C-alpha cells in the first residue's frame, strides 16, 4: 500500500523525511483505556515503527462508550485491553510492530523496556504511575506527554528532559486520588481533545520538530467552552528530585509503590504480589471449580464470582477485586483464594 501515507507526506512539516523518521521510532504507551485507545490508533495509522502497550486491565461494557478500539465481542471474551488493542491495531496497519504487555507498569518492567524507546505516552489513570513515568523519562532522557481528563475537562503537558519542567516540578506531591474521577464521569469529546493534543505533540517529537512543541500546560472544558494555556517555564525547579541538579528519582524506589491500589472510580482494588508470578490459570480454574466457585476465563485471566465481590486474576498474579474499595478486605479476599 504505497499510497498509504500520501496525505501525511503532503503535510510539509512531515514530508518524506519525517515519515521515514516516524517509521523508525518506538513509542511506549502506558495504559490502553480511553486515551490509550485513541493515541494508539493515531500513531499506528500514522505509521510509527513500533508501539509497545502496557495495560493491567481487561475490557468491560462500561468502556465501550469512549474506548474506541474495543468491541462487544472483546467484552464478552473479557480480553485484556492490551491484547484486544493489539488485535484491532494489527487489522488497521499490519506494517506496524505492536507489542502487548498485560501487566502493571512497575519500575523494573519499565527499566527493562525503555532502553530503545523514543517517546513515552501517558494513557494511565493515576498519578502514582505518572510520577513513575516522569522519573523514568528523566533518568533515561526520553520525552513523555502527560494527558488526563474527567467529565468534560481535559489537560496535557509535554515534558522534554533537560528542556521543560517535569511533572514533579508542577506537582510537589501526588494529588489525592479519587477526588476527581469518581464523581464527574467522562464524555468522549474530552477524551478525543486530549488525544488530539497528545498525538500532535507525539508526531512533532517523532519527526524531530522540537521548535513546534507546545511550551504551555493546556487545559479545556468541552462543555463550558473554556480553553487555557499556561506558561510553565518559570516553575522548573533546580532542586527537583526528579529533574533537578541532584536527582534521586524517588518514584523508582519500590518502597514508594503500594501493592494494593484503589482503581480510579471503579469500586475496585488491585492487589499485586511483591514479585511477578507465572500462574497456571487453567489448573487454578479447575481447582476453583472443584471447590465450588463460579469461574470463567480465557488464556489471560480467570474471573471468579464470589457474590457480591468478583475477582479477576491475571497470569502475573495480580488480581482485581471488584465490589470493594477496602484495601484490607481486598487483600484478605486475595489471600483466601491464592494463599
Amino acid at each position, binding site marked *: 500500500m504505497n499510497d498509504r501515507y500520501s496525505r501525511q507526506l503532503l503535510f510539509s512539516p512531515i514530508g518524506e523525511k519525517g515519515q521515514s523518521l516516524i517509521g523508525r521510532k518506538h513509542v511506549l504507551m502506558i*495504559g490502553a*483505556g*480511553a*486515551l*490509550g485507545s485513541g493515541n494508539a490508533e493515531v500513531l499506528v495509522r500514522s505509521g510509527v515503527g513500533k508501539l509497545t502497550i502496557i495495560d493491567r486491565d481487561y475490557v468491560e461494557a462500561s468502556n465501550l462508550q469512549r474506548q474506541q478500539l474495543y468491541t462487544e465481542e472483546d467484552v464478552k471474551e473479557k480480553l485484556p485491553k492490551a491484547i484486544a488493542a493489539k488485535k484491532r491495531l494489527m487489522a488497521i496497519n499490519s506494517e506496524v510492530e505492536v507489542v502487548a504487555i498485560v501487566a502493571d507498569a512497575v519500575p523494573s518492567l519499565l527499566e527493562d523496556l525503555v532502553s530503545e524507546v523514543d517517546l513515552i505516552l*501517558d*494513557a*494511565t*489513570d*493515576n*498519578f502514582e504511575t*505518572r510520577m513513575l513515568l516522569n522519573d523514568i523519562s528523566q533518568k533515561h532522557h526520553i520525552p513523555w506527554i502527560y*494527558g*488526563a*481528563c*474527567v*467529565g468534560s*475537562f*481535559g*489537560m496535557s503537558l509535554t515534558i522534554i528532559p533537560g528542556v521543560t519542567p517535569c511533572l514533579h516540578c*508542577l*506537582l510537589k*506531591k501526588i*494529588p*489525592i*486520588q479519587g*477526588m*476527581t*474521577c469518581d*464523581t*464527574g464521569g*467522562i464524555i468522549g469529546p474530552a477524551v478525543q481533545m486530549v488525544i488530539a493534543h497528545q498525538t500532535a505533540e507525539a508526531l512533532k517529537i517523532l519527526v524531530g520538530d522540537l521548535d513546534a512543541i507546545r511550551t504551555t*500546560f493546556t*487545559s479545556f*472544558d468541552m462543555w*463550558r467552552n*473554556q480553553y*487555557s*494555556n*499556561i*506558561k*510553565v517555564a*518559570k*516553575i522548573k525547579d533546580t532542586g527537583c528530585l526528579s529533574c533537578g541538579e541532584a536527582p534521586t528519582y524517588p518514584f523508582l524506589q519500590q518502597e514508594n509503590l503500594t501493592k494494593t491500589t484503589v482503581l*480510579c*472510580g471503579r469500586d475496585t482494588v488491585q492487589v499485586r504480589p511483591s514479585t511477578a508470578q507465572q500462574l497456571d490459570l487453567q489448573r487454578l480454574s479447575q481447582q476453583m471449580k472443584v471447590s465450588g466457585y463460579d469461574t470463567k476465563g480465557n488464556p489471560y485471566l480467570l474471573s471468579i464470582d464470589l457474590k457480591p465481590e468478583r475477582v479477576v486474576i491475571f497470569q502475573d498474579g495480580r488480581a482485581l477485586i471488584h465490589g470493594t474499595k477496602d484495601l484490607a478486605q481486598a487483600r484478605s479476599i486475595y489471600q483466601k483464594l491464592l494463599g
Partner: protein
Amino acid sequence: MNNVLFFAHLKDEVGAESLQIEAKGKSVLALKQVVHDTYGLSSIDSVMTAINEEFAEDDDVIQEGDTIAFIPPVSGG
C-alpha cells in the same frame, strides 16, 4: 481587586466560574487559605495555581489586577 478563576470540578464546588477577591499583597498560599475557609474547598492544597497565565508557587505574591486561576490536576485516562 483580583479575578479568581476556578477550573473543572472546582467550579461546581465553589458554585461559580470566577470570583472577585481582594488578594493584593497576599501570597498564593494565603489566597488558597481564604478560598478554603470561605468556600470549603478541601482539595485546594493539591491544586495548581496560575497568575496571569503563568504557573505560580505558593510563596508568589499577588499584585493588584492579577488574574489567578486554580486548576485541579485530573487523573482520568
